[in-house]
């Protein structure tokens, strides 16, 4: 025992750049991703998919496929013992299509065989006869009353209006535009994969799967298999990125069904092409928007019509729509609004969650408008945004008051303070010049442009959904065990959870137990929510354990527990000399507590789109500098400057990694990433044809993290995952407009949009 105050030098508490506990395994190839799993006597599973966007299935002939040596089972809709459909919000998607296929890639049957090549041959040998229908691939056409209903639930997933304030107000300055966004793919690297092991006797399934939300998968699988929920036990298989694409069911039900059907372990793994067909994408959207403002540029009213193409099945379209319409004002004050939003069913591939969730589309539209407004009012892009920047206490167009810390103006001014990049050097390496090593760009054709984007993003789930998180903390002999179902997709909760335990309990050693369904739900790793929600649950469980540790120490040493605090790795009497190490204090005792963190309740929107539907908000600003070859239409993003409202930095390196990674995805959406659709059919479902940013496309990123701790958040920290990818896209688009003088109302911006 010592009365000297120790200064903490521990690098692994909150605020430090603690290192990934899974880092060593990941850099040496030893980390087990779901695609690396094996079981004795396992079979491979594969999926037969529709080649047509809209067709009636006339007949299916499996005879030739069954004759292939090594084929063990073929299952279809009639082999689904429980619910024939699934879905995150509305259960409208068939496990297997039996009568009608509604998109290219829709599953029709699944095969189990001894080798992936046997599976491929079996799928090729199944003969399906179709009666081809004319696909409805334009969302506006799908909405027309005379258009055929694609699904018994109709062609409209959801319509919602926001009507508030003066509906007739006309501004002295009016700017309007129609903005479009293509379909983006999450393109995580680790393909969909799972291993399902049937219980002996077929009473249940043990499943290892890469997902974003174990308990939601468990619920949906159990319903389709008609088994009690505890008979489907899920353990997280290592996840190679997610970005929204693993929130919906993909192969989970098929894999579990094949395992029960064959009584053998089944491994399923999608190819890259199948992955494009097998998961939902970012919604393509068409947004008309009109701003009314004073001559000085103060926004008075917005009018907007927003149409999101949800593809063939509902997924999360209704929630994406609400995010879109409730964020269309951007991070700017506005009291009068008329907004009409539609999420529509078409025969395009289904769309759902992707990082930014509806706000990416809205932000591209409102930021394009802000630049138009700046021009119309004769002020700069920075001035128009500062003039309208919202602050804490402002009322949104939904009537909800922004209670979150809202440093919008600070995001803008701090971004503006970041030094501009040096001009393109005359002797620059070819790879630093737009056009690259082909030396295609002539110096006099290269024009530099600058553009801005600022955004607001809701955190956690909305509209009355209680997406709570559960965590259990055990302390014994100075070692903490944490148990939760929080999915690590790469974002770093696996680093954060031990940081929390070390900070609250003064321990060094923290063990994370297997992430599975043997504890309550943690909710989804999405909506920038796990630091807040699961972080809050881990923090809460650790605080309960700490309280019991203090009671235990107080009883033995006859000290009022209220006088005890954790100082570094010791329990200390803050009013006396007593000090004991946490290791010593917890030797021979086991303290265990479980905590559920719930965010504050939210409300539905009423018919006029009024209601406190969101939990909290985060803000960010981006400034893009680009070089454009105006003759060839080529673009190189040189620098992204950003200041992000993070609440509190819990791990500087991990936070920077989220910011840089999000910026790369937003860059992709601005200039290269699009699933090209031709009458419902994907033209580019491969990494050869779907272009992703490479190391040579990565711009210089200069990031400032604005720390104004959020009072509502358990750790003072806001979610930081989504904001980086939201306003960077309009910032880059604006920079290209600045360089070219072109209108460019659609992203991704292609060479032909610039030079033709």
């Amino acid at each position, binding site marked *: 025992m010592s009365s000297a105050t120790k200064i903490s030098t521990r690098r692994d508490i909150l605020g430090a750049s603690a290192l990934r506990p899974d880092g060593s395994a*990941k850099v040496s190839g030893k980390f087990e991703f779901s*695609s*690396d799993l094996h079981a004795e006597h396992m079979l491979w599973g594969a999926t037969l998919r529709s080649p047509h966007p809209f067709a009636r299935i006339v007949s299916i002939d499996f005879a030739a496929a069954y004759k292939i040596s090594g084929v063990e089972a073929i299952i279809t809709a009639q082999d689904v013992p429980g619910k024939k459909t699934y879905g995150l919000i509305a259960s409208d998607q068939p496990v297997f299509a039996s009568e009608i296929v509604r998109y290219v890639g829709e599953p029709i049957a699944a095969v189990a065989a001894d080798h992936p090549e046997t599976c491929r041959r079996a799928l090729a040998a199944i003969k399906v006869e179709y009666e081809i229908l004319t696909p409805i691939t334009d969302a506006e056409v799908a909405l027309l009353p005379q258009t055929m209903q694609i699904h018994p639930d109709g062609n409209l997933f959801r319509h919602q209006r926001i009507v508030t304030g003066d509906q007739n107000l006309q501004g002295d300055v009016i700017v309007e535009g129609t903005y479009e966004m293509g379909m983006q793919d999450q393109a995580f690297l680790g393909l969909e994969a799972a291993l399902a092991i049937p219980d002996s006797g077929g009473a249940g399934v043990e499943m290892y799967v890469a997902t974003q939300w174990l308990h939601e998968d468990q619920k949906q699988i159990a319903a389709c298999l008609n088994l009690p929920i505890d008979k489907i036990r899920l353990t997280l298989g290592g996840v190679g990125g997610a970005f929204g694409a693993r929130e919906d069911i993909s192969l989970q039900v098929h894999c579990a069904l094949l395992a029960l059907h064959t009584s053998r372990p089944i491994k399923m793994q999608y190819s890259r092409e199948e992955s494009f067909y097998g998961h939902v994408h970012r919604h393509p959207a068409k947004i008309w928007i009109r701003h009314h403002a004073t001559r000085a540029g103060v926004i008075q009213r917005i009018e907007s019509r927003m149409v999101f193409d949800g593809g063939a099945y509902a997924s999360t379209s209704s929630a994406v729509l609400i995010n879109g319409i409730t964020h269309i004002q951007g991070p700017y004050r506005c009291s009068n609004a008329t907004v009409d939003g539609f999420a529509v069913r078409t025969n395009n591939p289904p769309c759902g969650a992707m990082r930014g969730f509806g706000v990416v589309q809205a932000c591209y539209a409102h930021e394009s408008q802000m630049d138009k407004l700046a021009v119309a009012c004769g002020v700069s892009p920075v001035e128009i945004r500062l003039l309208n920047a919202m602050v804490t206490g402002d009322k949104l167009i939904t009537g909800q008051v922004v209670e979150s810390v809202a440093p919008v103006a600070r995001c803008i001014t701090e971004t503006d303070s970041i030094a501009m990049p040096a001009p393109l050097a005359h002797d620059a390496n070819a790879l630093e010049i737009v056009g690259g090593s082909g030396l295609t760009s002539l110096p006099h054709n290269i024009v530099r442009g600058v553009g801005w984007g600022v955004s607001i993003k809701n955190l956690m789930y909305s509209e009355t959904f209680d997406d709570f998180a559960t965590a259990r903390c055990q302390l014994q002999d100075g070692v903490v065990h944490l148990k939760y179902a929080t999915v690590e997709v*790469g974002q770093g909760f696996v680093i954060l959870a031990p940081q929390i335990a070390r900070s609250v309990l003064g321990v060094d050693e923290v063990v994370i137990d297997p992430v599975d369904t043997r504890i309550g739900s943690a909710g989804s790793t999405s909506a920038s929510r796990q630091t807040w929600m699961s972080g809050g649950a881990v923090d809460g469980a650790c605080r309960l354990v700490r309280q019991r540790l203090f009671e235990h120490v107080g009883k033995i040493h006859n000290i009022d527990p209220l006088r005890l605090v954790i100082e570094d790795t010791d329990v200390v009497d803050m009013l006396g000399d007593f000090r004991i190490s946490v290791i010593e204090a917890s030797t021979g005792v086991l303290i265990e507590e479980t905590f559920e963190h719930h965010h504050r309740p939210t409300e539905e929107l009423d018919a006029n789109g009024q209601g406190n539907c969101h939990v909290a908000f985060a803000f960010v600003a981006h400034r893009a500098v680009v070089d454009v070859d105006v003759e060839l239409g080529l673009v190189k993003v040189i620098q992204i400057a950003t200041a992000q409202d993070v609440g509190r930095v819990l791990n500087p390196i991990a936070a920077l990694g989220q910011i840089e990674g999000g910026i790369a995805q937003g860059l992709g959406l601005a200039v290269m990433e699009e699933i090209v659709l031709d009458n419902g059919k994907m033209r580019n479902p491969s990494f050869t044809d779907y272009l992703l940013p490479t190391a040579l496309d990565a711009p210089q990123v200069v990031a400032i993290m604005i720390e104004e701790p959020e009072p509502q958040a358990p750790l003072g920290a806001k979610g930081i995952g989504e904001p980086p990818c939201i306003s960077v896209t309009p910032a880059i688009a604006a920079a290209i407009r600045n360089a070219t003088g072109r209108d460019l109302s659609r992203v991704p911006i292609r060479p032909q949009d610039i030079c033709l």
Partner: protein
Amino acid sequence: MMPNTEIYNLKVNGKNHEVRDAWVGESLLYVLRERLGLPGSKGACEQGECGSCTVIMDGQAVCSCLVMAATAIDAEIKTIEGLSPDGELTEVQDAFITEGGVQCGFCTPGLVVAIEHLLNNNQSPSEIEIKEAISGNICRCTGYGRIFEAVQTAVATRRAGK
């Protein structure tokens, strides 16, 4: 059992492996992962676009998804598992952890192999040489910033160690 199967030998990480009853159409990536118990190389595109499956074959960095395993019988193959056989991480691997170059980690083995290959051929690569060397390795999580830092750190550590 699949038709057209063969028995052949592969030399991986200095060790001879007999491959039995393998369909001749299998890629080197498939054989490493599914037959030889070496799942460190990852498959993410099957088209040589993403670099997750990068291995060193006779001194060249190649995408093992594009190599037919049965054509690699005379080659010296080195995979991520062969970089730190005794468990001690290389400077590159260590720097990936300390600089935050790892998020989901799926691209990491391929990137580590590609960067080891770069540094074995060029001890002081310029920033643009680093970018070019790893431009065949796609990372979807990091935006590459921390990976560039990791390479710079590994270069400095290797130089200091000499």
